């Protein structure tokens, strides 16, 4: 990341007389206007160009497919028995630049597992969707592969998603299956 000093732009007398530059600016905007209008004419000989109608995604009715790595809403991944994969290590909460993950750890009854999150909350109004939590997690317990963006909220409290909400979301079709942690632990049981 090289540091670049941008020269302060001095306008020449010609540019400061405004009018020629305004005329040029008008030719640009009018050019767009005219070409878009011309594309509407059915027998336009230049109709190689697509019309605005074709180029526009009309949002609520038509939706763009998000790219595969789109960071959507978070979800917590379950183990095979349905309990959260998260071991309440606080790595994600530490990594989070927005301080929006709140975890309360509790001791797990499973002797092979130390802790589990008694509460796991993400405040989506503070979240900046940076994905650091996903990167930080050693257990692959939190992902942002749901492919949905944050829904609108009526009240601030609704924006705070708890453990149950986070676990109810599914990864979108085609997301890679959960790997690693659980199987790994089965091979090399800890603490026993």
């Amino acid at each position, binding site marked *: 990341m090289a540091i670049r000093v941008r020269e302060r732009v001095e306008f020449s007398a010609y540019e400061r007389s405004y009018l020629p530059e305004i005329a040029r600016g*008008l030719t640009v905007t009018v050019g*767009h206007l005219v070409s878009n209008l011309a594309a509407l004419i059915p027998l336009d000989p230049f109709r190689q160009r697509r019309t605005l*109608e074709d180029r526009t995604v009309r949002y609520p009715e038509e939706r763009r497919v998000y790219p595969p790595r789109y960071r959507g809403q978070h979800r917590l991944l379950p183990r095979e028995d349905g309990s959260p994969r998260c071991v309440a290590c606080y790595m994600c909460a530490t990594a989070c630049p927005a301080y929006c993950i709140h975890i309360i750890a509790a001791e797990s009854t499973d002797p092979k597992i130390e802790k589990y999150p008694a509460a796991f909350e993400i405040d989506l109004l503070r979240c900046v969707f940076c994905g650091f939590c996903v990167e930080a997690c050693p257990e692959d317990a939190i992902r942002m592969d749901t492919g949905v963006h944050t829904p609108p909220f009526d009240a601030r409290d609704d924006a705070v998603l708890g453990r149950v909400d986070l676990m109810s979301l599914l990864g979108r079709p085609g997301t890679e299956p959960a790997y690693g942690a659980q199987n790994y632990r089965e091979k090399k049981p800890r603490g026993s």
Partner: protein
Amino acid sequence: MFLLIATLLKFIFFGLVFAIGLAAVLTWMERRQSAYSQDRLGPTRAHFFKIGGKPFTLFGLLHIAADGASMFFKEPVTPKNADKFLFKIAPLIGWTTALVTLALIPFGPSLPSSVFPASWIPEGVETIYLQMAHVDSGILIVLAIGSLGVYGAAIGGWASNNRFALLGGLRATAQSVSYEVALGLTLVGILMAYGSTELGSIVESQNGLLFGFLPAWGLFIQPLGAVLFFIAATAETKRTPFDMPEGESEIIGYFLEYSSMQFGLFMLGEFLEIVVLGALFTTLFLGGWQFPHLIGTDSVSVFGLFTWNGPVAVAVSGTLVFCVKTFFVCSLQLQLRWTLPRFRYDQVMRLGWKTLLPLALINIFVTAGLIWWDPTLSILSYVSIGIILLFVLVVIAGPRRPPQVAHGH
């Protein structure tokens, strides 16, 4: 009685149907035209029903109806300590001045009274002007009334008992007063060249051709005056490079406290002012209803393919030509808004006092000198065409800054 009815009809056609109708259409054009010049689609939503699965939006024109309905059914809120009376009448002041100005504008050639049955015409009336008020001091009244228009903004800002609205009103007042000076002075050149203040006869004098092909419009003998007038008038209508009084995106302006249809009146009033400016510019600089090669003195012909004789033909097509020209001037004003960023307030003041005013004065002296040298205006028109060609040359061949290359970070 006949004259009264005629005036009423003229008002209904020109005032109600054309001007207010065009103002309403401009609210749509503002969105559609800006969208098309920015490669967007613009208004596509408002519709009552669907045809073939597609909503029937009439090119988005139904948005005008939707806006109207939404404004009408909202609650008009008057702030608690506002001056109730002034608060109510403020939006109407702009309307009044705009409509009074329209009354003076000739929108078509005058008809000889022989067109009508002789029993209708009162004694001594020989021509029926397509102009609501045929007043000799036309342009002076336009300037006088036009400067009253700012009272709408000033009173609206003051009466709503809100500091920000008051500041907006003050900005509007200062700006209008500053540009009024330049506005008046830019017209002196036209007055000297045509030797009349009556708008109808100014239009009449713009007939004929320059160099055998150019229409002898005000634009071609007063190019600098036309540009300065357009700039000053844009400042008067408080539109984008000069929309400091309103500043809708951040500093908010004089109609801050207005809601519902009261706000709608302000808004439509601004568009009406654009129409008035367009009509005025057409009258003074674009030859009004004149269109050489097309409209003759008593016949209309489209390149010899189609001819239509008689004063009625001239009147009808002249009126049409006037409306089309006005439409294009309005459209240019909208396009300007979507091309230019807004000035800073000190820039607005500097432009008004230090640039427009001296230029307008220079224009007056040079024009006066050239007219004194040659009263037939031909030297004036040579010089003017020279200026226009020079400007076009500068626009095409002037220095260009190399485009700034965006570097990656």
